[in-house]
């Protein structure tokens, strides 16, 4: 008996088009659970991750994303030994999944990474191995923590400034801490389809507001960042 690999949850009545295949070219099927459907493929084992399989996973989710239906994407790697086991898990969390589907209905996700090209290339000093005293070591640690706090604060301020410019074009946002010296902040925006043009115009306005920064905009994506 084959297992079931989950791609996404979709509103009731949303079913894969005939001939759609996913990971390992397995046909994509749908099972109704509570008030929604789950898109899955029958696979004998949990698929090992690869770029190709990640692309296939996303391609299936993108097919589920239409003008009339917005799916809740699943994270890669969710495989169940039987279809019944998948359905049982989904039924157990049905209320939360239904709430997620309501939250993302009619919307898509954009990713915005704000980069400071001119940020200093020399890192904040880390405690040097040759630091001879405990005091020097602690001072270096404190300097690094202060720099991290300063960068986080700047990221929060810029995210707030961008949010003010984008206004009602954004339904919800998720802010990620910067992970490199040049990244100021990463933001995921949930945007209603009808607001996409005003969102793009807002991003252009934000670029003009912060000419010293570079904005890396990606999307529209299925709403991965707002799935839970």
């Amino acid at each position, binding site marked *: 008996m084959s297992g079931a690999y*989950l791609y996404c*949850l979709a509103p009731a009545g949303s079913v894969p088009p005939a001939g759609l295949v996913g990971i390992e070219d397995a046909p994509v099927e749908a099972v109704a659970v509570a008030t929604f459907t789950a898109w899955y493929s029958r696979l004998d084992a949990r698929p*090992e*991750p690869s*770029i190709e399989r*990640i*692309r296939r*996973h*996303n391609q299936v989710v993108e097919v589920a994303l239409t003008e009339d239906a917005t799916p*809740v*994407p*699943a*994270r*890669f*790697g*969710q495989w*169940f030994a039987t279809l019944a086991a*998948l359905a049982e*898990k*989904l039924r157990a*969390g049905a209320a939360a*999944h239904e709430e*997620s589907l309501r939250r993302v209905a009619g919307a898509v996700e954009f*990713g915005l*990474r704000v*980069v400071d*090209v001119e940020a200093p290339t020399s890192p904040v000093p880390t405690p040097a191995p040759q630091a001879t005293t405990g005091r020097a070591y602690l001072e270096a640690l404190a300097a690094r923590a202060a720099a991290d706090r300063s960068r986080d604060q700047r990221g929060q301020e810029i995210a707030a400034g961008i949010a003010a410019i984008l206004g009602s074009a954004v339904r919800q946002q998720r802010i990620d801490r910067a*992970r*490199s010296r*040049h*990244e100021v902040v990463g933001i995921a925006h949930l945007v209603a389809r009808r607001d996409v043009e005003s969102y793009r115009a807002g991003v252009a306005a934000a670029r003009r507001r912060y000419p010293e920064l*570079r904005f*890396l905009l*990606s999307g529209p*994506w299925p709403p*991965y*960042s707002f*799935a*839970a």
Partner: protein
Amino acid sequence: MENEPTLHEELTLAELVNRVLDRGVVITGEVTISVAGVDLVFLGLDLLLTSVETAVQRKRLPPPEGG
């Protein structure tokens, strides 16, 4: 300018990997996927970080002659 499509593809792939591996609803309780003992979520973040830094480096390159 020749590099722009490649950079765009690189960033898009990094954003895709980050989303598919680290976002999305989790039904099973916990999903940890690793290769050779390294959590793929961190590999996805590394890819993203590297792409951002690549974008920065390319931004710093002088404009092409006559451009």
